[in-house]
């Protein structure tokens, strides 16, 4: 509803539109990638343009966890706990080679990729990724969420049709 004009939509679509354009990221920054993350949120690259305006440090208030940096075995339980504290629905962006796969630290104290412990939606490669890389990653996440909701809606519709059909047949 803009001025005199009307827009009709479903509640799900409105919700998805809102969700897609106002992520509240939790920066789980540990190392070098966190410095690049700071560059991305500061004025030059300005991630707020894509709706990543509200950076929250409390897991209870955020829906995207951006893991930026090496996760060691000592840090792993902390990361898991913070992920568990985030309310659903939630997504994870793994920023940089270390978070994706351990990077070039094939070592006794480094986790070989955070997907050993938590599910990851988007992997952003690079050591560290360029700011453009991270921005591409978060746009991919948007697309992924759109795709997933569309799929879910289709599935639900099919299921409903299926249920109706079986009722009719009986």
């Amino acid at each position, binding site marked *: 509803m803009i001025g005199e004009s009307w827009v009709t939509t479903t509640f799900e679509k409105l919700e998805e539109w809102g969700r897609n354009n106002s992520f509240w990221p939790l920066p789980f920054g540990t*190392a070098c990638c966190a410095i690049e993350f700071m560059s991305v949120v*500061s*004025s*030059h690259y300005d991630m707020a343009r894509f709706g990543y305006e509200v950076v929250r440090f409390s897991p209870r208030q955020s829906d995207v966890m951006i893991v930026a940096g090496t996760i*060691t075995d000592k*840090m792993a339980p902390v990361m898991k706990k913070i992920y568990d504290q985030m309310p659903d629905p939630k997504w994870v962006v793994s920023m940089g080679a270390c978070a994706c796969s351990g990077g070039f*630290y094939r070592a006794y*104290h480094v986790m070989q990729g955070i997907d050993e412990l938590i599910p990851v939606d988007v992997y952003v490669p690079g050591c560290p990724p360029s700011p453009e890389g991270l921005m591409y990653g978060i746009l991919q996440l948007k697309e992924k969420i759109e795709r997933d909701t569309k799929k879910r809606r289709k599935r639900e519709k099919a299921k409903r049709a299926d249920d109706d059909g079986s009722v009719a047949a009986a």
Partner: protein
Amino acid sequence: MPTTTAPLPLPERFPADSIQLREGLDQPTWIVRREILVDLARELTADPETGFDLLLDLCGVDYPDREERFEVVYHLASLRGGGRLRLKVPVPEDDPVLPSLIDVWKGADWFEREVYDMFGLHFEGHPNLRRILTHEAFQGHPLRKDYDPARRWILTEDKMYRPQPEPPMDAEDDMFERMTINIGPSHPAMHGTFRVVATLDGEIISASEVEIGYLHRCFEKMAETHTWQQVIPYTDRLNYCSSFINNVGYCRAVETLLNVEVPPRAVWARTILSEFSRVMDHCVCNGSSLVDSGALTNFWYLFQPREEIYGLLEACSGARLTVSYCRIGGLAADLPPDFEARCRALLETIPAFIDDVEKLIVSNRIWLDRAVGIAAIGGEEAVNWGWTGPCLRASGVDYDVRRDNPYDLYDTVDWDVPVFHGGDVHDRFRVRISEIRESLKIIRQLLDRGMPEGPFIVDDPHVALPPKEVAYNQMEAMIYHFKLIMDGIQVPPGEIYSAVEGANGELGFYVLSDGSGKPYRIKVRPPCFPIFSTFSRLINGGTISDAVVSLGGLNVIAGELER
């Protein structure tokens, strides 16, 4: 680097066979029996003129073939007299005990814990000898030569260490109930991965414990499993706010071992880029510590010059943050054609941002209330804890590696070492702002001198890769190329401690080679390691909000602290 102004050995007091003297490549080396270590250390610190007041570094080395398997190496410096000294203490495997030097140099505290963690050596008299870098479920000692570099141990939440700092018994008992609060390791004020557990009395911290190791990425073990050239990218990720300085520090150490002369063009570029990196690092440190006290505007103001410098580094190396632009013997590639123009443009733009921040902050009532007198430490105590760099200069000690052990071109330019005397958060901020200006001064002079012509890397096929067009067309060059890629540089056996002035203090590399084509041991002297070990001492007795402000000003970088 000055070789010796050290006092002569003290043969009368100690038995003849307890100290052996060696003339090292860089500094005198004494091999000391562990029985006399404490007495010798006291003796060495005693002289008010030439005493070794600074314990720079303490590390272990493993020699599985030797009769006495381990060696603990102490690097000492005398800020008063300018001398340097290396002590080596052999320790057998079946009785891995040596005395703690924590009573002589307080800075030995965390260093000894690290040696215990990495090698399993026990320090008698250490009050809190437990693992520092690895986690609680870890078994074995990873820097021993027989430890598999990829052998991991999984830590589960129930096994995590839970510090319970106990306030001192004589602490005044008042009406408040005590409470213990955990800050970090994932906390916006903890700048990465530090963890502080504090016992509060009202708002006052009565006791605290610092836990680190959440970013221990095994740099030193990784260095032992790669060739000399392959270590360079790992050094980038030590202090990632000024990665170029780490490159220079490491390459300089290896070049000294190899006895390679770096061409003037590379030295010139190294000096300029090191100073730009220092400016960047100080911008991050000041910017983020001001955010911690609520001054958010300055963060944006200080990050903009940083972006501009990134542009320069990207033009040189192709990377913004982790540049890997140095090579042993020179640089990875020639400077871009517009290098000078870019530098001049930066010299024009940066000062305005710095002036703005200074104007906003220096006479700002809120900032002064938050910073003056907070987390203060005197010069002598700071040296005893092992401090170096801007934090030490804020405490009134006039020591800068660039001036006192000059390297590259620092002794040919005219600049000052800013020193402040308050030793508090405010003066640490002021020192950094002044140092940014000095760095720009150095850069301007070097630019005025003009870029030296000539090669950007040494013309030695045993050290530097031949240019691609030669390697593709000449048999000999191709063989050299192949050998360097497959076997790496063959560094002759030897050891060296070489230091540069990192952005937060003396960044030293203690490099040991056995001639095998891979480093035998590389120990980094991380400047923020001894500084951060003082953190409990700095925040105890202050309020919890002061603890947050004081952490930012110390410029502790997790990648370097925990390696």
